[in-house]
């Protein structure tokens, strides 16, 4: 009989793939929990994604062009980092600038929403034959805790739908609604008495079956059942009402603020990745009006989150990513809107693994092109993975095709890393 260890080695030797197929398989399924845990960094950083759905304008947030014909209506303000200025709509973030690394030289390759949302969640462009996983699933896989009562990949009001892709159901996101509602079937539909009777009976069946049937599939099935039960015990973490009164000032009284507080609570409970999303930045008309309405509550919550994480000593171990799927055009169109633009735009990183208080890269005087240090989507994700202690060159398999976490040829932006 092949023992456990040599079977793994054997599988690695034969391409380390499970079944391939036109239907995609489950990544390196046989690199079971044990080996993944051993490969993961001992620090196990976590990540919060603040997602600006529709694509926030760099000109009205992090990369102002005062005086240029492309500049728009808002003025720049100083921040707590000498020489770094951002939009006047963001006074609270301006006071947290020492924690931020702003990237003003994003150059990405999908200019429309579905493609952009896919790209900026997976690092890859959509293709017909490979289902790439979102980076939340990757972080759940490499930095997630094995024995946990909460799922490792949680999304609040997310518009992305790539999910776990070829990494398989174990890393599927747990999706929370815009107002904090849990996904379908999360709430127990049985009285505690019935639930406990069923649990006893089912556990008995699993145990007797497991005694003679040793295939690990039934073990996985059993463990997932246990996890679904444990979730019932920790559901109160999703109910932020009790804590909200204390924090509404810090986060600002907005739904996005509430979502950010929920993210902090989940991270505090050990969840490895939480996405919170705000819509709707797709300002093809009245760009300034939309940003004036959307940015202040968003930046209030963002700043509040950074302060809260910092005060709790969690910021060093929590990476906070701020981005949308695209940037917006330098030109203001005849409806006072800005359209989609990916040749030059901005994102920001803060916290775990990131050297704050800096602006990386630069766009030219009108924001039409990147002036220096362009950062592609691949570079961006390679940097995120590195900051989290995950090797971006690590490979998973879709069928027989090895897929590195960040696309082949991506560069880690070392200047962004630190602390």
């Amino acid at each position, binding site marked *: *009989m*092949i023992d*456990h260890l040599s*079977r793994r080695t*054997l599988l690695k030797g*034969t*391409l380390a*793939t*499970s*079944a*391939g*197929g*036109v*239907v*995609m*398989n*489950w990544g390196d*399924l046989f690199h079971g929990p044990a080996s993944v845990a051993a490969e993961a960094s001992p620090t196990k950083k976590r990540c919060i994604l603040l997602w600006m759905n529709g694509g926030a304008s760099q000109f009205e947030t992090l990369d102002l062009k005062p005086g240029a014909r492309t500049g728009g209506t808002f003025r720049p303000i100083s921040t707590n980092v000498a020489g770094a200025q951002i939009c006047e709509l963001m006074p609270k973030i301006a006071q947290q600038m020492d924690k931020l690394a702003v990237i003003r030289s994003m150059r990405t390759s999908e200019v429309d929403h579905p493609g952009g949302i896919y790209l900026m969640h997976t690092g890859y462009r959509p293709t*017909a*034959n490979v289902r790439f996983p979102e980076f939340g699933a990757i972080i759940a896989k490499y930095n997630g805790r094995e024995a946990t009562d909460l799922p490792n990949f949680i999304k609040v009001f997310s518009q992305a739908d790539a999910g776990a892709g070829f990494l*398989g*159901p*174990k890393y*599927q996101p*747990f999706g929370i609604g815009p107002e904090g509602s849990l*996904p*379908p*079937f*999360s709430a*127990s*539909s*049985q009285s505690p008495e*019935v639930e406990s009777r*069923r649990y006893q*009976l*089912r556990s008995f*069946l*699993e145990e*007797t*079956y497991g005694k*003679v*049937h*040793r*295939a*690990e*599939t*039934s073990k*996985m*099935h059993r*463990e*997932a*059942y246990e*996890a*679904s*039960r444990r*979730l019932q015990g920790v559901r109160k973490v999703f109910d932020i009402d009790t804590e909200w009164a204390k924090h509404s000032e810090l986060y600002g009284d907005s739904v996005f603020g509430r979502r950010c507080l929920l993210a902090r609570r989940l991270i505090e409970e050990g969840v490895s990745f939480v996405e919170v999303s705000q819509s709707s930045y797709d300002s093809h008309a009245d760009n300034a009006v939309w940003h004036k309405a959307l940015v202040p509550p968003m930046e209030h919550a963002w700043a509040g989150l950074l302060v809260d994480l910092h005060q709790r000593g969690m910021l060093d171990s929590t990476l906070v990513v701020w981005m949308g799927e695209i940037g917006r055009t330098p030109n203001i169109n005849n409806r006072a809107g800005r359209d989609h633009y990916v040749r030059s735009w901005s994102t920001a990183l803060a916290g775990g693994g990131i050297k704050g208080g800096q602006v990386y890269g630069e766009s030219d005087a009108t924001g039409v092109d990147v002036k220096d240090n362009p950062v592609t989507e691949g570079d961006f994700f390679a940097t995120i993975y590195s900051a989290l202690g995950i090797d971006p060159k690590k490979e998973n398999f879709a*069928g*027989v*095709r090895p897929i590195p976490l960040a696309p082949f*040829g991506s560069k880690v932006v070392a200047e962004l890393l630190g602390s």
Partner: protein
Amino acid sequence: MTHRSDDRRLTRWPFAALVVLSFAQSAWAAPPLQDVIDNEVHAAWQREKITPSAPSSDAEFLRRVSLDIVGVIPNYDETVAFLADPSPDKRRQLIDRLLDDPRYAKHMAELWDVLLFTRNPPGSEADKREGLQNWLRQRFAENTPYDKLVRELLKAEGNSIEQGPPLYFVQYRQRPEDMTEAVTQTFLGVQLQCARCHNHPFEPWTQQDFYGMAAFLARLQIVSAGKAENQNKLMVAEKSTGDILFTGSVKDDKPGKKGDPVAPKFLIGDPLVEPPLPEGFKEVAKFEENKPPQPPVFSRKDQLAEWITRADNPYFARATANRLWAQFLGRGLAHPVDNLSDANKPSHPELLATLARELVEHQFDLKWFIRELCNSQTYQLSSAGPESDPLPRWFQQARVRPLSAEELIDSWQVATGFESSLKPDAKKKDGRFSPIDGGYMIRFFGQPNTGTGDFQGGLHEHLFLSNGPVSQLIVSSPGSLFDSILKSTAPWNERLERLFVSLLSRAPTDEERQKFSEFFSADEKMNPDRLRDAIWALMTCSEFRFNH
């Protein structure tokens, strides 16, 4: 019940060494292929010093082979009858019966439908596929030789609704590169996708090979043939001119670079010899809608369909034999099943060669092949045993695979008697997964579904099982499992047997009898809530969730 002793065999694997002897002395008058299978697999055990598990019990075999051939567990009566049947070749008879059952064609069609289209086809035109599904079902019902089936699919004649086959290409929306990747992987077990963007890193395939194959499909056009039942009828037309352009390696790609035309060339072999176009030939500017498209002067697509399915194509028969083997034995001899490259050596090379040769000699007769597989002693081993790999590499223990979404709903319906409570047209009205929403079934159980053993635990599946609509299947109508047990005045033992045989296709063990008697006897009368609990537990436990 007479089969109690039978189930005790489940726990007998430590004595499996004896089986090796009995294999050698087997006096079965068996057709050659199934003997070849057992001999080759046995030889590998000896070489690898592996002890196989015991032969499966009748109950274990019945459930497994029913799920594998007709996609659903046996019902109570079928199970009782099979277990009580004293005839020595009842397993062989069962296999024959199942292969003749109309549910065989339905099951095969559903497997191939997912294989050809995945759960999320690249083009939304293929979201509804009734025409193609009917076509597949009919082909499997008639036991159309597999090479003929593939040829018809790839020639794509007719339209996507009345005939079906065109839908396969339609899903790729005139992207010959995507079609090429899919066709070579699915039917030849050759994975060219790396060579699409750069020469393959560890296989002989170059980008020229990839585009040489894509050239066969570069002239295809999707043409509308009107509407039927609110769906577009689509046809695959082919032009007589036009080439695929190859721009070189993606990393050297520059915007505006046009690329050079690549001539069609079979993957291993010669360039296609094409007759010259007649003098003064004028290409169709645009195919007319609602009319059978004018055929090309010379069809590259048909040439590809013929070449792929030729008996002497070194990949086709091997890929087919390997895929069918994996469907029933869990993992391919070369695994993953759709990768027959040199870097992915088969575990039993001689056996794979024989299977492929025999498949050609039997004109790609699928039922014959499946019959040989299922009658082998290898297939009929027990899944009880010490091996933790659900797909043991040496086939020393039966594989364990999850039920597909379709198998799961059908088996639940049979087990609970939901099916018999349905009005005849209810399924058509309420959808394939009635009474459960099909979207949920696909979302929670639809993947993985490669027809093999891939499985991962998932939290969502259990939230659904515990809190979702599964309990709607536990109906109380007359004749249902719930009703017959609740109303029964038979002794506990008999009622428990009914419960276990209906759900798990086996009698309860002594331990289970005791546990369940205690569970029910907590109340004086049979408590309907507790009966529901018990049915639910048996519907959702691992023993039900997997084919083992």
